[in-house]
């Protein structure tokens, strides 16, 4: 039995480009909702043109997670659009409110626009780490991105999410290597390791005793057109 995920409150998911923020955010939302927690989520990714939270809105709606996204007519616009509903959901948060930000420092600049609403709330800002991605394969690289994000968001990082993976090529060795990496990063940065992720098909093969943090199973939602997203339930 893995340690239970107990994340609540306002959680901002950040990280470098392609670290897996959106996939983590979607799966975290689904996991908590299925555990009986009231969850709302906002897509704040204003910079990524493809593979955004809005692609998974129907699967999330089916299990009762409300996703705040830009108006449908602007889905494919190459424009940064922030729905005014987001400020409202921060002022009146659900038990778990997930804000899925865009990549790097550029992707969190949007948080400054929400500063008035965010300033009055206690919140977590979690950095997603995949050491198999460029620029975050070293502790120094992760710390540099952490500082850049903190500066742009004007919010201090509070924790880490280990998301070591090579998509379909992920093995148990990658998970263990990634866990060691993110544990080292947690020690050096003084940040909490909130949880790590593992692809759903590897979850049952995992020796959970090896990990001193909760493990979130990832059912992949953001897939290319020749693949089917995994069922969330």
């Amino acid at each position, binding site marked *: 039995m893995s340690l239970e995920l107990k994340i609540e409150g306002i959680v901002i998911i950040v990280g470098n*480009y392609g670290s897996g923020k959106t996939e983590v955010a979607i799966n975290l939302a689904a996991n908590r909702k299925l555990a009986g927690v009231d969850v709302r989520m906002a897509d704040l990714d204003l910079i990524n043109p493809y*593979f955004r939270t809005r692609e998974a809105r129907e699967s999330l709606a089916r299990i009762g997670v409300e996703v705040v996204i830009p108006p449908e007519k602007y889905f494919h616009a190459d424009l940064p659009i922030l729905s005014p509903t987001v400020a409202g959901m921060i002022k009146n948060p659900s038990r778990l409110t997930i804000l899925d930000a865009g990549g790097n420092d550029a992707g969190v600049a949007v948080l400054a626009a929400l500063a008035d609403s965010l300033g009055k709330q206690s919140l977590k800002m979690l950095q997603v780490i995949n050491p*198999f991605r460029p620029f975050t394969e070293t502790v120094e690289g992760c710390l540099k991105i952490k500082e850049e994000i903190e500066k742009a968001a004007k919010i201090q990082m509070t924790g880490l999410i280990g998301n070591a993976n090579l998509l379909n090529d992920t093995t148990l060795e990658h998970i263990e290597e990634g866990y060691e990496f993110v544990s080292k990063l947690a020690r050096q940065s003084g940040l909490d390791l909130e949880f790590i992720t593992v692809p759903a098909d590897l979850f049952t093969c995992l020796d959970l005793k090896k990990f001193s943090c909760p493990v979130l199973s990832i059912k992949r939602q953001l897939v*290319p*057109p020749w693949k089917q997203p995994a069922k969330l339930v």
Partner: protein
Amino acid sequence: MGKKVLMKGNEAIGEAAIRAGCLNYFAYPITPQSEVAEYLSHRMPEVGGVFLQAESEVAVAYMIYGAAGAGARVFTTSSSPGISLMSEGLSYIAGAQLPAVFVNIVRGGPGLGGILPSQGDYFQATKGGGHGDYHLLVMAPESVQEAADMMMRAFPLAEKYRNPVIILGDGLIGQMMEPVEFHDHLRTDPVNNNHWATNGMQFRNSSKPNIVKSLFLDPDELNENNLILKAKYERMKKEDILFEPYNMDGPYQKLIVSYGTMSRVCKTAIDNLKVKGIEVGMIRPQTLFPFPETAVFEAAAKESCKAVISIELSMGQMVEDVQRCVQGLRPVHWYGECGGNVPTPEKVMDVVTSL
């Protein structure tokens, strides 16, 4: 092979260029290609290379012309409207016989179109785009790994022919993430270009300077230059056609011709149909110019084959080349979409079985 990493196609394209030994990159950002510039803005300074953002794509094309003319390995990336702007320069570069690599991460058109994946620039890439009698060598990857591999091959090919090579990837190739490994040994020194590059008189054997130009006012000279170009294109057809046959051993009744990420959808459809006992073969051109003419003809001529279909993210462009290759031997159909919605495997199965 090095360590496997997870990369966006756009990042892998940038990294592959560096690994291939290209340290000169001039570009202007445009969705869905901008991550190449973003990535190289970090990486080029790390390896002592140059990334210069130009004031427009028109300027980029002539920066490429200048650098290639001086004998440097150079490349750029853009997306459809940007490539249109570069097309005048591409014609000049082809006319002046300069090696350079272009990447088009294609978005929907015409005009500003949209930012989602498309293969609507097939004609532009394979039939010209700019003015005059010239061709680009066109390569079309279907995965992030293949995009990286093709980038590394593109530079030696451009130098072999002294001709621009273009990588034609639809928006998904740039945006999707896949594991990728980089070959360690493809880095090659640029070929000896002392006989044509304007790289300094210290490299000349005589006092005669090299001149890089596409202007030939003498009609005989201009005709001669075009004959040289034509001979190169004929040589490409003999030596550098690439294609992948898929499920071609069985008694297929239908033959698909498809490229890029559209062929990934077709592969899933072919696998699903095989489970149902329906055999469908596919030729996936990896070079669009030179086109795998003989392979398509022979695949269509197979006795079991009753019909051929070109499946593309455009309103029927490659289908004209497929028709040309099949030479009326079999009926040739087309199916495609070009708004940015990539057809599902189920849709492809329906289309193919209803032929």
